[in-house]
């Protein structure tokens, strides 16, 4: 699968309705750039009528992915997405079904016998909680829609409430030729380390930042300019999504995260499809 990029959030400026969400943490928080600290909160996830929301986009657009970032949905949560055009939710553009947000990731045969998740092939919470929780809901083909209904079934959420940090509705973009071999994923250590005269290290622990570095060397003029436009449109403030391989489920939660462009991408021009650019995508931690 090719890497997917998305930089324009169709949810910006959208209207939000439906469900019952905390007055202090309303649905409008879904586009607040403080994803972790300012979520939309449903205080009663036991009632499915409360834990749903409708998004009315500012225009009809081709939607190929809905991403819910910095959520606290539990391992057993399910979600149902309905896309609709002007005909309304009675005539959806997709075939809405309830999906487990943490489906099978591993074939049982690849797991040691007696592993707690041997039968389900699902990750352990201890694995998931290494990273903030994000939900990626791609569609096989972009669907034209101006309304989206998101229903959440997480009645057993151990927190007793549901937080949705940020909503990214995207038409993803994948260049004809994928990024080059040699893509790197690294961790930028943000710990503050003091060394005492005794030699002991006293460490102020802070979340490490994931950083993707990747090159594209086979871009058409249109593709390289589209990536160039990303820098102009997003700057360092607006989030960018990059999913290296949507099908690589065991690693998706490690490799896919909302990111900022700290170094804005340029465009290197070569022959017709040999244009190049470099992306450095730094994880948004807040």
């Amino acid at each position, binding site marked *: 699968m090719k890497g997917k990029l998305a930089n324009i959030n169709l949810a910006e400026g959208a209207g939000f309705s439906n469900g019952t969400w*905390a007055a*202090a*943490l309303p649905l409008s928080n879904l586009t607040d750039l*403080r994803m*972790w*600290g*300012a*979520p939309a*909160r449903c*205080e009663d996830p036991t009632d499915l009528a409360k834990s749903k929301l409708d998004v009315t986009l500012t225009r009809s657009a081709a939607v190929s992915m809905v991403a819910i970032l910095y959520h*606290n949905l539990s391992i057993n949560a399910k979600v149902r997405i309905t896309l609709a055009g002007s005909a309304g939710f009675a005539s959806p553009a997709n075939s809405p079904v309830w999906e487990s947000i943490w489906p099978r990731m591993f074939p049982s045969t690849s797991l040691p016998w007696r592993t707690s998740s041997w039968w389900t092939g699902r990750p352990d919470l201890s694995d998931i909680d290494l990273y903030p929780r994000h939900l990626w809901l791609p569609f096989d083909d972009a669907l034209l829609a101006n309304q989206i209904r998101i229903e959440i079934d997480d009645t057993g959420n151990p*927190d*007793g*409430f549901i*937080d949705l940090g940020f909503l990214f509705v995207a038409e993803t973009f994948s260049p004809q030729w994928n990024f080059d071999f040699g893509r790197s994923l690294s961790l930028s250590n943000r710990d*503050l380390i*003091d060394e*005492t*005269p*005794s*030699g*002991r290290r*006293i*460490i*102020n*622990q*802070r*979340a490490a930042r994931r950083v993707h570095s990747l090159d594209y060397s086979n871009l058409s003029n249109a593709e390289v300019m589209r990536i160039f436009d990303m820098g102009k449109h997003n700057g360092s*403030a607006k989030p960018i999504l990059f999913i290296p391989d949507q099908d690589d489920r065991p690693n998706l939660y490690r490799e896919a995260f909302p990111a900022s462009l700290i170094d804005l991408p340029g465009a290197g021009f070569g022959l017709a499809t040999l244009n190049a650019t470099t992306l450095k995508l730094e994880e948004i*931690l*807040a």
Partner: protein
Amino acid sequence: MSAVILLEVNLVDKNGAASVLRLCDRPIRPFAPNDTERPNAQFDDRLLEPPSIRRSLFADLSTLSADAGFGDFSASNADGGLDYLQSSAFGKITVWRWTAGAFSTAQQILIGQAAAPVWQIDADGKQALLVPLTDLRGAFDRPLQDNLYAGTNANAADIEGKEGGIKGRPKPLAFGDLSKAHIPGVLVNDTGYIWQLHDGQINGSEAVSERGDLASGLIDDGDLSSSVFDSTTPVAAHYQMDLARGLFKHGGAPGPSLGFDFLGDAASSYSDKLAGIAKKILQKAGVSAGDISADFATAEAAATAKAGLWISDAVSVIAALDFVARGDLAAVLPDRAGVWRWVELKAAGGAGHTIDFDEIISLEADDDEMQIPVWDVEVLYARNYQVLTGDNVAPTIRATTREEFISKDWRLARKFVQTTKDRWPGARSLRIESALIDEADALALAARLLALFGPRSDGTPKQVLRVVREQSSAALTVDLGQSVRVKFPPASIDRDFTLIEEEVLRPDASKLTWRLFG
């Protein structure tokens, strides 16, 4: 993850509406909807420099004088996200250290008062908000007495003084045992011959002297109710009291230089102990009972030394507390939760907290005058509030101990160790004024000061250390005045010190800076 620093600032906007600004130093999810203290509360992770206040037992240990603690915090305003607060007044600031779970598990580490915020704007740089703050003592650099004479006297029973006379002067405050203080009082009515000794109820036991002579022959007509006091006039050579208002009325024209000895403030109760007087001062300054720790009652119950204080001018709350507390080698200051404490400065020792070698991030000896041993201590006590000399002294008491008393403002109790002076020619002398009234108590205080500021028992001079250590929950259980054992082999240090100053969240959010003496 390490602990999160949470901060709340009370705000009042231009329309008088109150709100709370909540900031933190790393991203956290809003507190749970069922959190008992902060349901759904969001903290904005834009703190750059976490708040700190340097809290000291004494601003100047050589004179045992106190001052408010000062500090600041800064928050990023690079995106202009705080601009909406520019018309708001910043008030109380509270800071917690929190790791996980309910807000109630957070450990309060600081409470203070914001000064005017500074909006840092730099066209070439990032915008930030800088908020200076003080501890709760900062609000007490104001006169203790805010009840002033109105200057509205119209007849002989009025007690507010006259225009051009005492109008605008603070009404006097009398605390504790002033039975040897020779208080001049404030003449509040010069036709009715009324003096005020205290703005409120006094305990009484008054004695009146003329020109220092206690055998004035004045006859006491007793304590009268306020209405009877106002409506009656004693006959010549008599006087009457209104203890409820701290008033004295003389029958007929008085002799010169009246002096009053009495027992002071008795509103709700009377106390002549230093801690008890300090508590009364805090109450007078408006501190609620819940914000005054039991330290005061404990110290008052344990004390034997008597003390007294009379204030007739614009003395600040801090100065009044400072003057009283030093008589017991103590400091009065708010703790990290904002509760006022009576903290005695004791020689380090006994079971206390230990900082091991591997917990010390940095250590340096502070170049402080306190390290020079003290060889000579003079404690001033038994203040005479009205000094009379020469012809102002009644002939009947000339060449007596009474004349000696009223001709000087202070008595002097002195203790010294000559061998200390011989060993350190530059050894310091200490001279402090106290609210004590008895010589034995003043001598005991001098001895305590000499022991505390003299050399150690092994003959080495004491040191002041500045230690930076990790800010942990354990470190935050230690408060000012407590004993701390420091183990630092590279400097051959393995001994007890007294914590005399702390700065939480400095040099950064994960550290704590202490000054230790011993």
